[in-house]
């Protein structure tokens, strides 16, 4: 037992918040750096939260070998405004420190770019506004800047992209976000009813409603303890895989659209429609909103739905395989995908990349396999790993994952048939365990999602933190387009398909 941190596991019991050792900052700094030196470890969330008269820091480091999550804490009174930055030692911490800086005005000494992350409504420094974001600049007569957004040409979310270009070539891209900030974390604290918090969790990123909804319900179950049986666990995993299949096929359509391969685009669009309509057949919503609730569900799977899922997935799987084998062998497509927007393994590690972005750089980041939750605890998943790190790899991994997810759903439905099929109704009148701290990790289609919360002595939510995988991966996109033609930006962007609202919260 180490007295520097507490240990927990994903999808398990909460910690007593008083048991988490509170370290002096130098010790906190040393422990975090020491843990992150071990390649098995990565930081799944690091943030600060206001307590009475103080600011408390929580750092959650996940160990992919022993499957533990270690929680380190530090507390400072409001006067402690300058801290040593972890970023020079552990670059992946850069975004977390930026967020703490923005939320609490803490200066991290030696941080390379302490810039706003999302301009939250309750930021202490109101002089920082969307209009005066401190973009990186290069003085030169040969270079020019290109600004794009917040409103983009397509039907997508807002964000601002600032390119510094040499001719057609991108030297540097900086991405300014925050336009979508809705005050989600604050609302988790303020909203009174548990149903409201469910609806809120499904709206963090609507394309990941099942994943974020599950991260929330799993966190609540950890803090409140309604037991979830095997049947419900399996059904949740099926929902998560359907979401993954739908988005991956849709992304493949979008990638084809960007390089004007219409056959690929329209075929995949139609296939995606079948998947989301299957979701609608199950729970009445094409994005799975309403499917995930704490303690139970309003939409238990039945034989008719299971048959429909299997029938549609078999058909889709066959057709998607055929079209992707064409997409990824067509010279005119390959010319636009191959060696474009490459992220190196080193870059993936140092930006803290997660999800497909990491897995296409030879880095295994998949919570289903490394910190299994729900039924994945009993059903090992072996994620596809590629190593080219380019647009082609990020396209191809989607086709591999669709195939694998269809296989998983088949297996899960087989398992499901063997269960007692007893599922309760959702539980909304739960009492959260007082003075507790819990972490919930989910592998959504986009990557690792982390929700964590602490309760006070009366069991009320004291703080609620959400981390969407996009928080890490936006930096990977910025690095990917360096030295690329600016005209390749759209296809690079699509290949990541990151969330604006998930980042902005």
């Amino acid at each position: 037992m180490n007295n520097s941190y507490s240990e927990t596991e994903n999808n398990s019991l909460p910690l007593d918040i008083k048991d988490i050792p509170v370290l002096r900052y130098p010790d906190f700094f040393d422990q975090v750096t020491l843990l992150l030196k071990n390649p098995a470890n990565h930081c799944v969330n690091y943030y600060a939260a206001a307590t009475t008269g103080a600011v408390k820091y929580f750092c959650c480091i996940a160990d992919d070998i022993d499957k533990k999550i270690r929680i380190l804490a530090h507390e400072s009174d409001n006067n402690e405004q300058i801290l040593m930055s972890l970023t020079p030692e552990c670059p992946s911490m850069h975004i977390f420190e930026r967020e703490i800086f923005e939320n609490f005005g803490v200066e991290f000494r030696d941080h390379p770019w302490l810039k706003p992350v999302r301009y939250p409504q309750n930021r202490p420094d109101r002089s920082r506004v969307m209009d005066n974001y401190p973009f990186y600049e290069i003085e030169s007569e040969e270079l020019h800047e290109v600004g794009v957004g917040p409103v983009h040409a397509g039907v997508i979310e807002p964000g601002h992209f600032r390119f510094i270009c040499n001719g057609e070539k991108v030297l540097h891209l900086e991405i300014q976000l925050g336009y979508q900030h809705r005050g989600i974390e604050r609302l988790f604290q303020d909203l009174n009813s548990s149903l409201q918090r469910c609806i809120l969790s499904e709206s963090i990123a609507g394309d990941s409603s099942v994943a974020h909804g599950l991260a929330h319900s799993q966190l609540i179950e950890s803090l409140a303890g309604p037991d979830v049986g095997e049947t419900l666990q399996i059904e949740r995993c099926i929902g998560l895989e359907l979401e993954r299949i739908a988005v991956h096929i849709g992304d493949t359509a979008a990638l084809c659209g960007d390089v004007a391969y219409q056959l690929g685009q329209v075929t995949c669009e139609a296939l995606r429609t079948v998947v989301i309509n299957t979701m609608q057949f199950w729970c009445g919503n094409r994005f799975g909103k309403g499917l995930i609730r704490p303690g139970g569900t309003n939409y238990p799977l039945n034989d008719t739905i299971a048959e429909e899922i299997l029938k549609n997935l078999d058909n889709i799987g066959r057709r998607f395989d055929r079209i992707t084998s064409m997409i990824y062998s067509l010279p005119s497509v390959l010319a636009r995908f191959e060696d474009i927007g490459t992220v190196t393994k080193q870059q993936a590690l140092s930006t803290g990349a997660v999800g497909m972005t990491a897995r296409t750089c030879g880095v295994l980041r998949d919570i289903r396999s490394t910190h299994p939750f729900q039924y994945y605890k009993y059903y090992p998943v072996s994620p596809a790993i590629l190593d080219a790190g380019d647009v082609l790899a990020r396209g191809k991994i989607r086709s591999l994952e669709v195939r694998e997810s269809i296989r998983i759903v088949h297996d899960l439905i087989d398992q499901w048939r063997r269960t007692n099929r007893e599922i309760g109704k959702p539980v909304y009148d739960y009492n959260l365990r007082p003075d507790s701290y819990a972490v919930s990790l989910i592998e959504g289609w986009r990557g690792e999602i982390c929700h964590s919360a602490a309760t006070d002595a009366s069991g009320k939510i004291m703080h609620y933190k959400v981390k969407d995988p996009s928080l890490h991966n936006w930096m990977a996109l910025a690095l990917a387009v360096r030295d690329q033609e600016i005209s390749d930006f759209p296809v690079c962007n699509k290949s990541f398909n990151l969330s604006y609202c998930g980042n902005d919260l």
Partner: protein
Amino acid sequence: MLKEIKVLSDHGWQSIKDLRNQPVSSIFRGRPVISDDITENEVIRVSDLCPSGAISGDSGGIDLGRCVFCRECEFCLPGKIRFTNDYRIATSSMEALVIKPGSDIRVRFDSSLVRSEVRKLFKGALKLRQVSAGGDNSCEMELAASGNVNFDLGRYGIEFTASPRHADGIVITGPITENMAKALQMTYDAVPAPKIIILAGTDAISGGIFKESPAVNRQFLDRRHIDLYVPGNPIHPLTFINGIMDLLGIKP
């Protein structure tokens, strides 16, 4: 070449022929029906339960502009409240969005509220600029899907443009965040007059689950004429398309 032909023949004819009457899953959550024998106590129960304040404690009516379509009121009072799969719920006025107890008729679209220039100028072709102002990307994806091979909104000359300068109006999604307020205003200003405003999704119509959030700033909507309200969480492409057809007076 043979492979391509095989893909195309499997693909078949994807476009929905009758966008007015396309069947959707029976459990799709569209227009609710509230029984007229719902009691006062029952109304209070579901009004307290409703996560977005869509159910009036007085009348028992459900305001689709506020409803997040979670269906929990139906689960609470089965037999008294029932969500039908009627997706034709987009309309021209806030009042028409309120479903009263005992009512089981289609949401009324009041054509007299449509400005005369809208049908005159845009019936043959309507170009729209989409602005996501805090949307969660589900409404945005459904708007994009409206133009895909299945829904094919382009058949009526309706599509989304890359620039507001080329547009005849804007479609707003999301509760309108403070951080997006200025960009929304600038986009709207850049659209040449006459122009229309469509609110797509419950978040856009009322703020939805975010309506109390201090990070939201809905001033843009003050004193502005809204041409079309499209409820949903997210909107269904068919709701959007039928709403536009009603707005423009397009007969199938």
